[in-house]
């Protein structure tokens, strides 16, 4: 039973001492900060996860030797009943240069690249060779092609969605060829050789899809525009030693894509895998060539449990390893998280660090409560003696100060939770109002390509923070309360 005097005195002390308001505000601020800052961060992280997931296949067989053939792998991998399909991928670094009218007949030179721009949307690119016939089965290419023009549209430019995957002629689709008339028009714009009769022109340049951030460096690119793509083939040996073979191919700009992950979109361009194989010295018509892959994207069947996916991953890795030469390094089968492990770990680490900082804010507010209550006990020693003389027991006296801590904690937490929830609800309207009227954005959405500031307040997080704040307040109130309860009444009465 809590004696009535404990509650009464605790409330009187709280109401008559203004410093207690500081404690309440301290707790409220800490709770608010933990909710809103973590809410926004969690919102960002959820977005990041969604984006990264949409830019990655469900499973990826990787770390393959540089001369791995896809066909042998495909047969064995797709023989597994849990595998729906696979798609080959070939990654290679390259350079990309738009062919402008003034330099239409010049091949790309590295000196022409925009080295001064510290962005990855300059001429450097990660060339990702995909099989346009198989790739749509392992990633949502349709969404990639829709989101690309959407992103461009946000920056005030209207571009049509790429149509190279709508091509009914499978040979043309596998080369991602733009429509004949489009390429003819592009040749005319660039002053390049073309058939005088446009209707007789047949597209010849393989298509290249650019990640939407490249619009900043290629603001004037329109469908069919020529790009020279340069890459260097894997080293080969001749009599004089290792040889690097540069290869340039002219390709036609086929449109923008947005896989969702800015990191991926900034660095990657999509090219037909056969074109890239040819550039790397494995022409499909050469009987000695192999259908080169660096990775194989794998789509498992729907509805698999986590354990089943893990078992499949292990199984597929063993199947692939068995097909590789004995001296080959260990290959890997990665899920979408593992494919982006470094990035996701960095994000998780950042969130953890931020939560630690916020917890320190909470500790500071708890320390303020502790010092205030400790000071209160010191200042109220005589009162404690009086209460003891009037008949207050040690437990009841301690409860006065414990309750003070609890009340401060509960009121501060309630205010903090209310402020946190209101802030989460009004975050975007306030952000927009500030931007419209003051020109200030609390959270620059453009920086993260977002329509609005994402804020995800999980009920369990709100409950954890609230419970933690109250418990911490109680915990720090225990010591002053214990001190008060243990005071000798006679000493307290004679305290000056």
């Amino acid at each position: 039973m809590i004696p009535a005097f404990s509650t009464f005195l605790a409330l009187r002390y709280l109401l008559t001492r203004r410093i207690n308001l500081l404690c309440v505000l301290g707790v409220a601020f800490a709770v608010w900060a933990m909710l809103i800052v973590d809410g926004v961060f969690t919102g960002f992280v959820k977005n990041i996860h969604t984006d990264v997931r949409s830019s990655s296949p469900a499973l990826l067989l990787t770390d393959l030797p540089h001369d791995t053939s896809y066909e042998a792998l495909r047969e064995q991998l797709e023989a597994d009943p849990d595998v729906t399909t696979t798609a080959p991928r070939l990654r290679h670094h390259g350079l990309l240069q738009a062919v402008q009218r003034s330099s239409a007949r010049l091949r790309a030179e590295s000196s022409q690249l925009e080295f001064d721009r510290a962005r990855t949307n300059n001429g450097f690119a990660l060339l990702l060779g995909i099989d346009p016939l198989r790739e749509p089965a392992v990633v949502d290419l349709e969404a990639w092609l829709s989101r690309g023009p959407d992103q461009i549209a946000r920056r005030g430019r209207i571009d049509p969605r790429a149509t190279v995957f709508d091509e009914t002629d499978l040979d043309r689709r596998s080369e991602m060829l733009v429509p004949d008339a489009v390429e003819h028009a592009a040749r005319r714009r660039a002053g390049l050789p073309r058939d005088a009769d446009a209707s007789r022109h047949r597209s010849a340049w393989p298509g290249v899809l650019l990640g939407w951030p490249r619009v900043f460096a290629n603001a004037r690119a329109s469908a069919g525009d020529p790009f020279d793509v340069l890459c260097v083939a894997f080293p080969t040996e001749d009599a004089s030693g290792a040889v690097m073979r540069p290869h340039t191919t002219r390709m036609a700009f086929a449109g923008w894509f947005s896989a969702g992950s800015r990191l991926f979109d900034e660095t990657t361009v999509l090219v037909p895998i056969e074109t890239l194989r040819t550039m790397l010295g494995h022409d499909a018509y050469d009987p000695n060539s192999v259908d080169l892959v660096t990775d194989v994207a794998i789509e498992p069947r729907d509805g698999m449990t986590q354990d089943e996916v893990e078992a499949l991953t292990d199984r597929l890795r063993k199947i692939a390893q068995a097909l590789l030469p004995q001296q080959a390094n260990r290959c890997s089968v990665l899920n979408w998280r593992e494919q982006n492990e470094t990035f996701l770990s960095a994000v998780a680490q950042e969130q953890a660090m931020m939560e630690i900082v916020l917890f320190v804010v909470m500790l500071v507010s708890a320390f303020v409560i502790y010092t205030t209550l400790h000071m209160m006990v010191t200042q109220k020693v005589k009162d404690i003696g009086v209460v003891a003389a009037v008949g207050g027991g040690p437990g009841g006296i301690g409860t006065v100060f414990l309750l003070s801590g609890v009340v401060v904690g509960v009121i501060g937490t309630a205010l903090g939770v209310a402020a946190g929830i209101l802030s989460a609800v009004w975050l975007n309207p306030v952000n927009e109002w500030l931007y419209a009227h003051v020109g200030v954005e609390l959270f620059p959405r453009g920086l993260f390509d977002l329509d609005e500031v994402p804020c995800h307040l999980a009920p369990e997080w709100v409950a954890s923070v609230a419970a933690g704040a109250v418990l911490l307040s109680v915990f720090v109130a225990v010591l002053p309360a214990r001190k008060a309860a243990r005071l000798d009444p006679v000493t307290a009465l004679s305290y000056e």
Partner: protein
Amino acid sequence: MSTEKPPVLHAADVHKSYAIGNRRIEVLRGVNLTINAGETVALLGASGAGKSTLLHLLGLLDSPTRGEVQFSGEATSDRSAAYRAKLRNRHIGFVFQFYHLIPELTALQNVLLAQMMGVSVLGYWRARRRSHAAARQMLERVGLGERLHHRPSELSGGERQRCAIARALLANPSIVLADEPTGNLDSQTAAGVVELMFSIQRERDLAFLLVTHDESLAQRCDRIVRMKDGVVIEQEQVR
């Protein structure tokens, strides 16, 4: 004095010593004293004689180093602090030289505090009308009917002491222990407070233990107990 009345408090061979560094200070050295119901006793002695220490022991605020303090025949030294607090609340009232009112509370709230000790919030809430009426009545009895909602800082010394007396009496105790209750008042105010205390004592047939230096005040009591160097050196029956 009425010898038929039962003892309220009894100190039997009470010793009290304190350790200060390596030294042990013997403040009380075998005190025997009985205070009967309705009896007024004055405790006289020079400073350092052990009067206040004895009062604290009799008021169950402290435990003797040796010996026993009995309340209504019940030994208290081995009882818990909470139990002794309960006995204090129900049966013992204190009046101090420096009033010891809680500054954040009004006169009425200071008096009501005694009513809040042994009950829960709900219990107090249910009985609040009765408690308030009793506290108001007690404050009116001590002449503070117009000062119910004033804080101690807004009361004079005499008023504060009256308020402290009201607080001590509200629970209708068996005995009031007063530690130099007029020591901080001018003579005129002190006389008023003394009159008030004795008139209430007579009305309620309370036992009173009065620690004082004032010989004339002591002469108004039934018995005078003189202390020196931690022992009772003389007990004089006045009436």
